[in-house]
């Protein structure tokens, strides 16, 4: 049973990564949203390097968060609409396992590319050289919380058409602590202060989300099936 569960789990993760990067998937698209939306800020705020450097960590993190958010929209929705959610519910893995697998796949296929691209945007936004390492590290540490929390929202809104915007209403407030710790860490580095403390808090947020996320998502998915 455990061996088969593991097979199902990895199989599901692979399936979702494959779908995310196949035609019309969210993988490439979230990345382009991230790039474009960050690029809009210099248009909006003006090109002064000093201002840009000052707001860079905040803007990059907020936009990464929004990109993650809009890609979450379809985390369960596609499976719900085409009836695959019924199949997922009948898998021996159980719905919590299914949710965890889908969250892993989302993070790997959609969020990880954002993390990889973030130094480029740091360049565009004139981020101080000292802060690059911490920014990437804070994204690696904090974004799992975004996927995990977002999964709960996505599961809750899955049976609601046009859930996308409702999703943001549910999820954004829960993102605030993660955001604050992460930006705190990057700012600390930019100002040559030790970012250990906010980073520790960030890790704690991700861990907490890991405990609650899959379970709560499964409960919400049950509701959608009813």
């Amino acid at each position, binding site marked *: 049973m455990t061996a088969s569960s593991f097979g*199902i789990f990895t199989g599901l993760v692979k399936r979702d990564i494959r779908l995310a990067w196949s035609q019309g998937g969210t993988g490439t698209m979230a990345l382009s949203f991230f790039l474009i939306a960050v690029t809009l800020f210099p248009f909006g705020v003006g090109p002064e390097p000093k201002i840009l450097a000052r707001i860079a960590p905040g803007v990059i993190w907020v936009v990464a968060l929004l990109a993650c958010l809009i890609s979450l929209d379809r985390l369960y929705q596609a499976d719900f*609409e085409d*009836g*695959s959610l019924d199949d997922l*519910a009948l898998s*021996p893995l159980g719905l919590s396992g299914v949710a965890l697998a889908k969250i892993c796949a989302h993070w790997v296929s959609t969020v990880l590319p954002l993390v990889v691209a973030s130094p480029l945007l740091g360049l565009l936004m004139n981020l101080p050289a000292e802060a690059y390492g911490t920014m990437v590290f804070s994204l690696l540490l904090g974004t799992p919380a975004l996927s995990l929390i977002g999964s709960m929202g996505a599961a809750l809104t899955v049976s609601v058409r046009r859930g996308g915007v409702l999703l943001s209403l549910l999820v954004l407030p829960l993102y605030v602590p993660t955001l604050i710790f992460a930006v705190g860490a990057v700012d600390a580095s930019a100002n040559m202060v030790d970012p250990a403390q906010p980073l520790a808090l960030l890790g704690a947020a991700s861990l907490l989300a890991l405990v609650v996320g899959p379970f709560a998502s499964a409960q919400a998915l049950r509701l959608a099936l*009813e």
Partner: protein
Amino acid sequence: MTQASSFTADVCPLKAEKLACFRGGRLVFEDVSFTLDPGQLLYLRGSNGSGKSTLLRLIAGFLRVQKGVLMYGDDGWWRGDAALSEAVIYAGHDNALKPVLTLRDNATELARLMTGRLVPDETLEAAADIFDMAHLLDQPVRYFSSGQRHRSNLMRFAYLKRPLWLMDEPTVGLDAENREALAGLMKDHLAAGGMIIAATHDPIGVEGQMLDMRDFQPDYDLEEGWL
């Protein structure tokens, strides 16, 4: 009465007693009782809105059993239960196909989801042959017509080896030849000791019990039913 067989899970009799179901605060049906033994087929009949789909989804464990009892062998049968989710194959109105994947990949993914293993190619091709889909195996599903999609969905009954089949309007949009193929598949399953519950408006041509959902319509009563 557990029966050794080619299925991945045990086959036990399925027994419903005085099931009732509320949807949106309204009582959809009540006092539904039936017993389904291995090798038997149960047709759900009844006019539109009489609760056939609802009963199927209840048995599949998507809805909570709010009233009454559902037993599989000697055990209770409840939502999220492992026994349930290893015994049931369900095919509903939606086709559960990913349009960008080929038919073969769709089938492979489903089998892996249900068993953790890959299906052998021969099994898959045999399954496709039943519904005359073998030449479509490596085509992306997005090119299929509505009947072809529906057949792709029905193929699961041929390559997953679970004992209890739940079919919601399996004949919809099928042409005559494929209706026959479906009937043949169902007969084989029953002969092997499997069980089927099928909601349908069309005759399928396989012997089975009838359960007319119109017999279980509640006298609607606002005072009792509204909460």
